[in-house]
């Protein structure tokens, strides 16, 4: 125990001496929270749309106004080229073109049927689908406004209500997952690199000849990173709460408990990686490939796991972040308790235990 303290002190000194790395380790979570909470908005708004008005009537101008006054659409910076209108889509200066054909105003006045044409840049399938449904909404509202007041409109309306994140704010959606990703990144990446560094510079052998056991070196080296990972997680949560008002409904202690299990799993991956490599560069690339990417893509952080093809879903069971994203979202947003989260918790514990076992064994055999 006493000897572990010295290793911890040495590691902390190493970390504190490298101010630049430390700044980034603290600045990175803040930047990511800021970008995910503020810049990445899944609710599509302000789509640029060009309107070609061949009708030149009061009605067509009203419709143009309706489109640009809606929060969904905005005017592109460049006008549409009348000879080659689609060039504006090709150069991505605009996402759609609405053609108002001659006779639109007249048809509207006489109550006749009429069709408007719209060409949408379909390259971004999500955006294109949004443009399609938004344009129908704008047109419907435009037509409804022209119906005299008091006349009932038959039909079925929807009264939507969203639980836990009523405004579907992206910060509420991303922040819990972001904590999972950052903790994975800090733990797996930093550990694999710090061990690889000792190997690359040859100081690992010096450490091993010192009167400390390999397991003590390992624990001593890892403890500071557990602290940093937890600190980064808390930093993100506080920042998200203060700046974006992301709620925290459930029990923080429960989250901390699961968080420790999760960090242990991530550290085991870090040890495993470091046992495979000889240089920091390779350690970093492997960490990037085996922890960062899967944690972002296969954990449900952005895309729900159950919509993925079955083989990928099977792979996702091997990714600690998959369980932790479900747990942290459940606790933070829904106030879910241990009973509800038992399945995910069990998965995480089993995964952590097996990773730790393999990593411990590999580290020992490598050292001998």
């Amino acid at each position, binding site marked *: 125990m006493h000897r572990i303290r010295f290793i911890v002190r040495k590691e902390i000194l190493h970390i504190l001496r*490298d101010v630049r790395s430390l700044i980034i*380790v603290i600045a*990175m979570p803040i930047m990511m929270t800021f*970008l995910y909470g*503020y810049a990445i*908005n899944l609710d*599509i*708004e302000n789509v640029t749309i060009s309107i070609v008005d061949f009708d030149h009537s009061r009605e067509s101008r009203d419709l143009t106004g309706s489109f640009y006054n809606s929060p969904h659409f905005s005017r592109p910076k460049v006008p549409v080229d009348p000879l080659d209108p689609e060039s504006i*889509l*090709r*150069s*991505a200066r605009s996402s759609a073109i609405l053609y108002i054909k001659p006779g*639109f105003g007249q*048809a509207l006045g006489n109550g006749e049927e009429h*069709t*408007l044409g719209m060409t*949408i840049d379909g*390259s*971004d*399938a*999500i*955006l*294109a*689908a949004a443009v399609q*449904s938004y344009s129908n909404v704008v*047109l419907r509202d435009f*037509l409804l406004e022209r119906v005299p007041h008091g006349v009932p409109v038959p*039909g*079925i*309306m*929807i*009264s*939507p*209500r*969203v*639980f836990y*994140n*009523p405004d*579907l704010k992206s910060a509420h*959606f991303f922040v819990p997952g972001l904590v999972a990703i950052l903790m994975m990144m800090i733990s797996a990446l930093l550990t694999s*690199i710090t061990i690889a560094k000792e190997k690359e510079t040859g100081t690992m052998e010096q450490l091993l000849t010192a009167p400390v056991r390999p397991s003590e070196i390992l624990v001593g080296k890892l403890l500071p990173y557990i602290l940093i990972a937890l600190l980064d997680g808390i930093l993100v949560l506080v920042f998200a709460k203060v700046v974006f008002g992301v709620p925290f409904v459930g029990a923080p202690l429960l989250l901390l408990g699961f968080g420790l299990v999760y960090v242990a799993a991530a550290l085991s991956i870090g040890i495993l990686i470091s046992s495979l*490599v*000889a240089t*920091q*560069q*390779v350690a*970093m*690339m492997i960490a990037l490939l085996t922890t960062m*990417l899967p944690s972002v*893509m*296969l954990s*449900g952080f952005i*895309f*729900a796991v*159950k*919509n993925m093809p079955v083989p990928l879903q099977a792979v996702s069971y091997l990714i600690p972040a998959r369980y932790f994203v479900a747990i942290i*979202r*459940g606790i933070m947003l*829904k106030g*879910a308790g241990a009973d509800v989260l038992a399945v995910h918790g069990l998965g995480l514990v089993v995964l952590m235990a097996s990773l730790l076992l393999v990593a411990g064994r590999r580290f020992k055999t490598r050292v001998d």
Partner: protein
Amino acid sequence: MRRAYLGLIRKEFIQVWRDPKMLGIIFAMPVVQLLLLGYAVNVDVKNITLDVYDFDRSRTSRELVSAMKAGDYFLPTEEAFVREATPVWDLDARFKDGSAEMALIISNGFSSGLARGDSVTVGVLADGADANSARTGLGYCAQIVNRYSRRVTGVSPPVEIRHRFLYNPEAESVNYMVPGIVATLLMMVTVMLTSMAIVRERETGTLEQLMVTPIKVHTLLLGKLTTFAILGLFEATLALTIGVLWFGIPFVGSPLLLFALAGLFLLTTLGMGMFFSTITSTQQQAMFLAWFFAIFAILTSGFFTPISNMPPLIQRITYLNPMRYFMSIIRGIMMKGAGLVDLLPEIGALIVFGAVIFSFSMIRFHKRVG
């Protein structure tokens, strides 16, 4: 000078070649990224578990429910039909343990109201913890209810929009993601490898050994940069080939133009990598800085969400991100067959950006060495 340059490139390649793990990663990286992103990025939200609480129990309400069931968007939960009379506030528990994601509530008087020609309301509740799925689910629900409403009331709007989709008529998100992945790969490989490799030579002291050879500093630097440019382009080509052959994504425009502009883009990323190597002293720092930059560059490039969707302040910041321009270029060329003229503003921006960052870093590097 020429011989020294070629010799240096050979040395760098031998170094990469000698490290089989690194080599493996260089091959595995584009493959893994493509497979993960190509398959995981699935925007079709399917089989949303839906609790139905039908208090009306009429033919009309049952028709609405079967309209929801048709297609594979919603998966009405068996249990819900049994527990039709359960109080709705039980939903919180259903959402919490994940047995349901959405709920449809049809209240008493639904069918009679419709028959009278009134406007009636159905309740739709969603678990918003996964905002992405909730948003899509609500959208599907609105579509189905609107279509059903039109059918049952016989009222259709007098004016309609006929939509036509250009470039990606099948609405395959893979077609849009793969070009983005290629851009990401090019950026990450070149920025990270460049910054780390230069710092590594400095850290291990081999840079000074090279300095005392008759090779000029800029020849040394160019040799390194060329190697990483070749590696980056190789990764990109590999990813493109897999994208076209495996995922069957279209490549409409000119590959030659794309390669030329990829070279231009590399000028900016190599410049960035070099710049990072001049302001850091260990590989770890270089890696962190490169990583920091990579995350910023990816998130503000329009890779996941359109730039026009970002707040004005962030939109202005994106102009400082070289990847933003290359993202439009590669998507434009591959999906839309955009030509030189369509892409002039982006090309101009990359030239300015590349010239500034590249020469600035070169000067800084010389100073550091001196």
